[in-house]
């Protein structure tokens, strides 16, 4: 009689095995292997279905049979860590990029990356945009050291193929648009977000994308801007602020930080 933890380990191994016809386990009653297969089927179909719902354009590009086979391999390689299935599939794009049978479609990985960004935008937690009055209340001398926290649904993608055009045409089932797509590499900068009307996929100028990426990575404003005035970046910052793409800010002032006592000081500075 196995303890509960040991029994659950053995059952999990049987459920995740690639092939059915698992041997009869002595701790189960009659015809248990066949009955365990009911759970194997449920697990697999639930997870494949979750990936289908997250990657509809990829599925249409490769067809249902290919998609299911790829999804099965992915599920074996990277099973879901948690029960919130909207979080499952972050690495599917990377998996497809390395999946030899998909090598004939070099843009497939990037379409999957875009679809994952769309999913993040669709399902991200609600978070109100940073109130401008809070920024305005910061002392002007500290403004260069402002760094931002991006909305959880915001993604920035730098791609090599026109993944946005492919994605739109495939989801719209627009054969004419698909025929016009030129799938040759050319650098593409995308911003994906959710606004009040739904998910937006926008193309950005390269410089604006790089500036935005620096801000979203938490770099302070002076570091993200560089040395030369750029009206384009100023307008982009205004657009980000008004669209609520940042939900909070921090002050990263080395001068301010220098005056603070280190966390493990002897305590003299505090008392």
């Amino acid at each position, binding site marked *: *009689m196995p*303890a*509960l*933890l040991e*029994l*659950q*380990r053995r*059952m*999990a191994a049987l*459920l*995740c095995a690639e092939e059915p016809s698992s041997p009869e386990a*002595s*701790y*189960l*009653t009659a*015809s*248990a292997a*066949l*009955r*365990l297969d*009911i*759970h194997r089927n*449920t*697990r697999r179909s*639930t*997870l494949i279905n*979750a990936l289908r719902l997250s990657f509809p354009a990829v599925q249409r590009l490769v067809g249902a049979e290919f998609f299911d086979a790829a999804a099965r391999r992915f599920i074996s390689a990277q*099973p*879901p*860590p*948690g*029960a*919130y*299935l*909207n979080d*499952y599939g972050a690495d599917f794009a990377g998996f497809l990029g390395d999946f030899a049978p998909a090598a004939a479609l070099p843009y497939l990985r990037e379409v999957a990356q875009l679809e994952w960004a769309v999913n993040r*935008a*669709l*399902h*991200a*937690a*609600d*978070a*109100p*945009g940073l109130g401008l009055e809070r920024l305005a209340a910061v002392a002007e001398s500290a403004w260069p050291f402002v760094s931002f926290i991006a909305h959880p*649904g915001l993604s920035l993608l730098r791609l090599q193929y026109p993944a946005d055009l492919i994605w739109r045409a495939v989801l719209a089932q627009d054969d004419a648009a698909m025929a016009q797509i030129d799938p040759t590499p050319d650098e593409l900068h995308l911003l994906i977000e*959710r*606004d*009040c009307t*739904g998910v937006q996929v926008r193309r950005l100028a390269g410089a604006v994308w790089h500036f935005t990426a620096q801000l979203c990575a938490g770099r302070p404003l002076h570091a993200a801007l560089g040395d030369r005035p750029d009206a384009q970046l100023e307008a982009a910052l205004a657009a980000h602020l008004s*669209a*609520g793409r940042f939900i909070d800010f921090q002050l990263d002032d080395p001068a301010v930080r220098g005056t603070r006592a280190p966390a493990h000081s002897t305590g003299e500075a505090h008392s």
Partner: protein
Amino acid sequence: MCPADNGRGDAGLIPAAAGIGLRFPHHARVVQTRPAVAWFEVHAENYFGGGTVRRVLEAVRRDYPLSLHGVGLSLGSAEELEPRHLARLAELVRAIEPGLVSEHLSWSVLAGQYLADLLPLPMTEEALEVVCRHVEQTQERLQRRILIENPSSYLQFAHSSIPEWEFLAALSARTGCGILCDVNNIFVSCCNHGWDPSAYLEALPAGAVGEIHLAGHAQRTLADGSVVRIDDHGSPVASEVWELYDQALRRFGPRPTLIEWDTDIPPLEVLLDEAARAAAILSRQESRAHARAA
């Protein structure tokens, strides 16, 4: 940037009436036309995020009593509960203020891996202690009582030592949790294991039963020739299950009753018809109770 409106008038208590499990294909219809349904229940995990889906849930909560039914907490895992999952459930409960919160007597997470099904537990004292600990932890975190649903099962463990109904009764007695009595699950499990469904109902503590589930199931023949009933929620409630439901109401009294349908989801009208059938049996039970009282 997208203001949410949480305004709602009542406490949202779930009435002893027939409700419907709300699934995504019926979202738009329900929000736009507000059909006459006594209450709705949703799967909590589908609403952990924000955006359109959360706006729909808020709108439904404004117009109807709402119950949250969790599917991923894995109360039966020998390991600890996943803190992030519990935190997300707590956030949703705080935001939605549902009339009922329920989960399953099953496990589905092990070693940081979600197994994407409600898996059966051996009915042992060890498993009972594990589930009790996790139910207490959940009730503590949510600051409220939860209901635990009896499973549908296909296989049994050779070393199970406690009948399922006794396991549920003990769980409720030790933790104060309620019982979500899934009548279809009782029927399915009893057929699969040769148990007596009437005896199962008789053994449950009536006062602890806070909700009843009804759904359809399928029947399949396995490769070894044995017949198994599978709880696939993909057809109307079976006639034997309606009869068992009538028995359940006689035993427990009127209880909030939910129609669930998850595979090949039909038009809302089909679910409304099933709910009307449950409502008729509920009102018959109520008149029986009145007649006895008179």
